[in-house]
C-alpha cells in the first residue's frame, strides 16, 4: 500500500467522481471515490476500490470477439491471458490469473473499450475543477464534496489537499471512512472536514477480524480520539446491516453505547446490505465471498431503527 506523500503537488488514484449524490452528507454533493482500502469486508460493494493501484476490468458487452478483433489474443498481451473457447463461440474470455497484471498501456490497445482500467491518477486541482462544476447547487442546498473509497484516509496528502481546496472554494466537506489507518492520517485530514461518516461494522473485535481481516481496537480508538479532538465536526455513525453478521440488537446497542456519550455524533444510520456490487466483481474477475447472504427484511430494519430513534430522542415512529 502506497499512500501519496508528495505534498507539493498532491495527486492520488481516483476511482470515480459521482455527481448529484444526496446520501453522504448534507445537501446535494459530489462523491469522489479514491482507490485503496485497508480492510477486506466480505460484503464489500465496491471491489474495484480495494486495490490501491489502477487495475484491469473487462466488459464483455463491448467486446466484438476474435474474428472481428482478437487484438488481446496476441502479443504484447500476456500468453493465456485472453482466450476463446473451442467451437463456434467467438467470445473472448479473460484468465484473470494471467491477465490481471495488464496495465493502462495494454488496456488502451483494446479498440472497443472492453478493456479499461479502474482508477487513474489525478491532481487535486483536476478533481476540484470537476467538483466545482456544481458549485451553485452546493450553495443552494448546503452540499459540497464527499471523499469516499476505498478508504480515502489512505491518501492523506491528497485527501487533505482536496478538502482544503474545497473549503477555500466555499464547499461543505465530508468524508466516508472506516478509520483503519494510523491516527496521523486522521490528524492530517480532519482539520478540513465538516462531516465525518464513519462505519461501525462490528463491535466485537474477533468478529471484526473474521469479517474484515483485522481487529477493531485501532478503529474504535480512532473514533473516540476523533470525537474528542475535533468537537466541531459532525460525526455520523453508520452500520452496513447484514443479517447473520451484525444485523442484531446487540450490535446496534453496543454502537449506541459507544457513540451517545459524544454529543458531536449527531446521528447513527443503518445501511441495509445490498448486492449491487456483484456486477463489479464480474468485471474484475474477483470471486464474491459473501454469496449466501440476503438483504435484511424491512421489519428488521424498522425494529433496529426504532432502537436508534429512541436513543436519539426521536420517538414516535420510524424516520
Amino acid at each position, binding site marked *: *500500500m502506497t499512500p501519496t506523500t508528495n505534498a507539493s503537488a498532491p495527486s492520488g488514484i481516483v476511482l470515480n467522481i459521482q455527481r448529484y449524490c444526496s446520501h453522504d452528507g448534507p445537501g446535494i454533493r459530489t462523491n469522489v471515490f479514491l482507490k485503496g*482500502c*485497508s*480492510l*477486506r469486508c466480505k460484503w464489500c460493494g465496491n471491489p474495484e476500490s480495494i*486495490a490501491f493501484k489502477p487495475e484491469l476490468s473487462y*466488459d*464483455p*458487452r463491448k*467486446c466484438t470477439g476474435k474474428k472481428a478483433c482478437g487484438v488481446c489474443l496476441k502479443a504484447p498481451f500476456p*500468453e*493465456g491471458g485472453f*482466450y476463446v*473457447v*473451442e467451437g463456434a463461440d467467438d*467470445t473472448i*474470455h*479473460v*484468465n*484473470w*490469473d*494471467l491477465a490481471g497484471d495488464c496495465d493502462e498501456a495494454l488496456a488502451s490497445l483494446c479498440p472497443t473499450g472492453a478493456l479499461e482500467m479502474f482508477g487513474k491518477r489525478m491532481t487535486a486541482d483536476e478533481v476540484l475543477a470537476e467538483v466545482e462544476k456544481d458549485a451553485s447547487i452546493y450553495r443552494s442546498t448546503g452540499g459540497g464534496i464527499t471523499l469516499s473509497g476505498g478508504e480515502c484516509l*489512505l491518501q492523506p496528502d491528497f485527501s487533505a489537499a482536496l478538502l482544503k481546496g474545497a473549503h477555500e472554494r466555499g464547499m461543505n466537506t465530508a468524508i466516508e471512512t472506516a478509520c*483503519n*489507518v*494510523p491516527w496521523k492520517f486522521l490528524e492530517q485530514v480532519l482539520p478540513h472536514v465538516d462531516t465525518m461518516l464513519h462505519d461501525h461494522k462490528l463491535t466485537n473485535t474477533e468478529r471484526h477480524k473474521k469479517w*474484515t*481481516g*483485522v481487529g477493531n481496537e*485501532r478503529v474504535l480508538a480512532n473514533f473516540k480520539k476523533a470525537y474528542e479532538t475535533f468537537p466541531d465536526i459532525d460525526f455520523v455513525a453508520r452500520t452496513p446491516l447484514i443479517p447473520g453478521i451484525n444485523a442484531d440488537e446487540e450490535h446496534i446497542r453496543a454502537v449506541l453505547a459507544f457513540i451517545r456519550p459524544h454529543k458531536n455524533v449527531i446521528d447513527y444510520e443503518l445501511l441495509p446490505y445490498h*448486492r449491487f456490487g*456483484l*456486477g463489479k*466483481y*464480474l*468485471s474484475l*474477475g474477483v*470471486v*464474491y465471498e459473501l*454469496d*449466501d447472504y440476503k438483504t435484511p427484511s424491512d421489519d428488521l430494519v424498522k425494529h433496529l431503527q426504532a432502537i436508534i430513534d429512541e436513543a436519539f430522542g426521536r420517538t414516535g415512529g420510524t424516520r
Partner: protein
Amino acid sequence: MKEIGHGNFQRRIAIMVGAGYIPGLNAVILGAALAAGKLGWEIVGIRDGFDGLLYPDRYSDGGLLTLSPELVANLDPTASGLLGQAPRIDPFHVRRVNDDDMVEEVDMSDELLKRLKKEDIDAVISVVGGRGLSILFKLHRKGLNAVCVPRSIENDIAATAVSFGFNSALSFTIEMLDRVRQAAQSARKIAVVEVLGDQAGWLALQAGIAVCADAVLIPEIPCDLQTLAARLKDKVTPRRPYGLVVVAEGAKFLEDIQTQTVKPSVNSLKASLSPLATGDASDHVIRKSGQAAETVATRLQLLIAEETFPLVLGPWVRGGTPTAVDRQLALGYGAGAVRAVEAGSYGSMVTFVPPDMKFVPLTDTINKIRTVPSDSMFMQIASSLGIFLGREL
C-alpha cells in the same frame, strides 16, 4: 542440486498440493516419493500449499517435510492430509496484515523462488486443479521448473482422460443416489438430486447411468423442461410411482436461454471466469449450492402431477478415502510427474491417455474445460438405457 559431501551432489525436488480436499493426495505424494527415491533424489513436501516456503518460521520443521524412506514406508495412501493445505495458493497475491495493521495483497513470487533456490530445490511438482494450473504456468514463466498433476473431482481438466479424485467422488455419488432412489420409492415422489459439475457433466452422467436415473441434466445440453416433464409422465406410473432426476450444478435450461428474462441458473460469476463464460455481465446472480436442483424440482412440479423434492449432494462427495482406481491413478500421476522432471519437461502437466502417462505443456490445458462431447460413449449408453439427457437426442 544439494551437495552431499566429497564433491557429490544429490538432486532435490519438492511436491506441494493445492487448495481443497480430494481423495488420493497421499497416494500422489507416495508415488512421487517412491519414484524420486528410485532415482536417488531427495524429495521434500511443502506444507500447506506454498505457505511452507513463504512462512518457514511458522513451522517447526521450517515448512518443508523431508519425505524420507522411513516416512514413505509408513505413508498411508488412503489418507490425504500429509502436507496440509492452504485456502489460497497464489504467491502473486498473498493477503496479509502489514505492520500498520492494514490488509493488503502482496506479490511474494520472488521470495518463493529465492527460498527454493536457497533450499537447493530445482523442480516442484504441484498437485493442482483448474486455477492452480494457471498460477503454476505464471510461476513457470517466471523461472520455476514446474510439473503439475491434475486434480479434479468433476473430471473437467482438459488434456487428461481421468483426473484422480473423480472416481472416488463418482463412487460415493452412486451410493448416495441409490439411497435417494429408495427414499423416492418409499415416498412415491420424484427426487431431483444436484451433484457437482459446474461446467462439465461427467459426474452426473456417469452416476446417472450407474443408477439408471430417469433423467440426467448436464451443463453441455440445455434442458427442455417441458420435454423432461413429458418423459417423466411416461415413466412414472402407478406400478412405478417414483422418479429420479440427476442434475449437475451447472445445468442450463432452454427456457432461460430463449427468453433471456429469467436469471441464469448457472453461476454466471463463476462461468465468467471459465472457458464457458456466457459473457453476460449485466444479468447475473451468485448461485447458491442447490439452486439447480431447486429450479428443476420447482418448475417440474408445475408441469406434472407428482410431487418433487430437491436434494443436494454437493461438497459431501469431496471427502472420504480414494477408491482402488484413484489410488492407482494417484500413484501413477505421482510417479509420472517425477518422470517429467527427469525428462526436463517443465511447464507441463502429467496426463493419463490410456494406456499411457504423458506430459503436455500447460498451455494445452489452461483456459480449457474437458466437457462431455455430444458423441461421447456415455451419452450413447445413457440414450440406450432410456435416460433422458435434457432433450431428445
